[in-house]
């Protein structure tokens, strides 16, 4: 079995929330080493060499993202994105609550790596318990001299602000997050300029996912080659996959990228007896489904893109043959309609009307013209919005509509009213 515990090591075995336990297991050694023996560009080099890609959804190479920061502006911010709300994803929630010091060390390393003296973490509003746990970790780390003025006597100042959201999926989008962090409505900004040029308070800013930053710790500990030796050609290293749905042992499983889809299902205890696989949503609510013919595909960024879907945040939702795909499509579209910030008409109106139409199908009151419309609507929402939320409304719907048209046709109203 390819489950390899890197970030998840020790979870469930010892109390990693206790800073003493975390330090006993080698915690904060990398921060100390980086601050005392490495230049900040060495951390950036390590990130770049490791091949680490963003674990929040977009999969952008982390080192490259950092390298976009303009060199001549000394003020820059690192923001850790812990606004985990992509349907089916529950890895950051676990990391925050179970191993907060690892998350914290990753943030501090990332901040040092980009030469930032003020880092932020944006925690989803619903994670109140996680916020409290993390605040305790921050207090303990501050007492130990890892945060604040003159960290560990190295002369490097590094402040950290913990910011709690208040319920809005769109704040996981990096510019929406920055607006929210500035005390504004979490509406995404027009890009360019990208945050690396003008982010928080108009200053160069890097926004990285929790899991991405946490991987900096083992990458520095074991060397970038250790990380890049694992995975596939362009998808390096490990990834926590949040497996849920119709499997016997749902949970977070950390595996090398490129693990075959079939093995992921087996890791999670397999399907329920007597059931067969219908579809998998392999990358969170924004991703299109893959199907049984993709079972032997490697789970990595490129293979999933080739299969017409994406790896996204690594949420892996297994759907077996009892799934009502009309209901599922309605559920998914309703989510995006609910979470649309409303700035862009195609997303705001498109999501709402798709939801309305799909609700008719759920009630068995679909119309033939609705079905045609569902096919036709493609392209009138996607690609026409400021951010990716609007583009995320259709993929799941389109993939299941194509695969299970009979389920939709069966919900067309046959009796004239």
């Amino acid at each position: 079995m390819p489950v390899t515990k890197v970030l998840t090591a020790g979870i469930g075995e010892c109390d990693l929330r206790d800073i003493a336990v975390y330090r006993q297991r080698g915690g904060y050694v990398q921060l100390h080493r980086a601050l005392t023996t490495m230049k900040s560009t060495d951390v950036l080099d390590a990130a770049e060499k490791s091949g680490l890609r963003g674990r929040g959804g977009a999969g952008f190479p982390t080192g490259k993202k950092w390298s976009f920061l303009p060199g001549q502006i000394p003020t820059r911010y690192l923001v850790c994105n812990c606004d985990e709300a992509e349907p089916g994803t529950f890895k950051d929630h676990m990391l925050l609550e179970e191993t907060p010091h690892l998350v914290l060390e990753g943030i501090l390393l990332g901040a040092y790596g980009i030469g930032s003296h003020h880092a932020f973490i944006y925690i989803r509003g619903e994670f109140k318990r996680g916020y409290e746990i993390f605040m305790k970790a921050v207090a303990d780390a501050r007492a130990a001299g890892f945060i604040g003025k003159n960290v560990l006597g190295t002369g490097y100042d590094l402040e950290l602000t913990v910011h709690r959201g208040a319920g809005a999926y769109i704040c996981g989008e990096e510019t929406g997050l920055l607006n929210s962090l500035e005390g504004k409505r979490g509406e995404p900004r027009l890009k360019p300029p990208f945050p690396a040029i003008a982010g928080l308070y108009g200053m160069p800013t890097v926004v990285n996912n929790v899991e991405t930053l946490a991987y900096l710790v083992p990458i520095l500990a074991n060397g970038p080659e250790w990380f890049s030796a694992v995975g596939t050609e362009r998808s390096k290293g490990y990834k926590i996959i949040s497996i849920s749905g119709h499997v016997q042992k749902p949970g977070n499983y950390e595996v090398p990228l490129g693990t075959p889809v079939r093995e992921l299902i087996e890791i999670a205890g397999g399907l329920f007896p007597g059931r067969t696989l219908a579809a998998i949503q392999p990358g969170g609510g924004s991703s299109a489904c893959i199907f049984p013919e993709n079972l032997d595909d490697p789970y990595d960024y490129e293979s999933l893109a080739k299969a017409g879907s994406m790896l996204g945040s690594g949420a892996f939702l297994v759907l077996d043959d009892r799934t009502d795909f009309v209901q599922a499509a309605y559920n998914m579209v309703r989510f995006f309609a609910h979470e649309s910030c409303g700035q862009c008409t195609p997303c705001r109106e498109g999501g709402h009307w798709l939801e309305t139409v799909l609700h008719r199908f759920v009630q068995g009151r679909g119309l033939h013209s609705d079905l045609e419309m569902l096919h036709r609507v493609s392209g009138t929402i996607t690609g026409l919005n400021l951010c990716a939320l609007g583009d995320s409304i259709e993929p799941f719907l389109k993939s299941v509509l194509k695969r299970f048209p009979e389920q939709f046709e069966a919900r067309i109203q046959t009796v004239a009213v």
Partner: protein
Amino acid sequence: MSTRAEHFEALAARLKPACEALIAQYEEPRSALLPIMHLFQENEGFVSPEAMRCAASMLGVSPAVVESTVSFYTLFFRRPVGKYVLQVCRGLSCTVSGAEEIMKYFREKLGIGHLQTSDDGLFSYEEVECLAACDKPTCMQVNLEFFYSLTPAMIDEMIAAMRAGTFAVAPMAQTEQPGKTWSVKQDGEVSMGRKSLGATDVSHPNNAGGLGDASGLIMLDRFVNNEIAMRGRSNERLVQDASSVADVLGDHEHAGH
């Protein structure tokens, strides 16, 4: 007469140092808007118009800016809600694992539906988007504390403990009684209109007229208009008789002075 104003003034004075500490964490004061609103909501049970005005003056922005921002976020309640806010996950992972039955059980057990508050002011119920605990379906939050793998037996126990005042999670502060429960379309609910528990809605009689409506006149106008507009709709739980109208108007007069 002035108890509400006096209470708020005392609260604002008490929270001021904490608010100032929050503001000091950021390069720009406005960044502290969300944390300050969280703080007031923890103390008042909802984000009151007074709290929004107070935050506006502390942050150096207009009350409209604060209200506009607060209204963006579903976890800020702009009107009083129940002491226990029950938020059940309706995400796809939970739904394919039986969340529908759990939600149905909740609605029947509580006698209220999505986005409604029980008349005794104890419970508010909301079906929310994915809570990021998909490995333990069906999950929910009670006053933002997680509960996992729900069963009807757990729900029975939970509700009984809340009624008895012995539940593990502390009730939310409730400085004002929630308004009467008005109908929210249950089955045909689509996302236009009110999207979250604490939101106000122009077509809703419980709506306040916003911060510009200190005297309550806009609300009264809206209330009367809605009352007329909605009277004919028999499938809605509306105010049926004059005494209920008088109740609501009485509540309003009380709140307005």
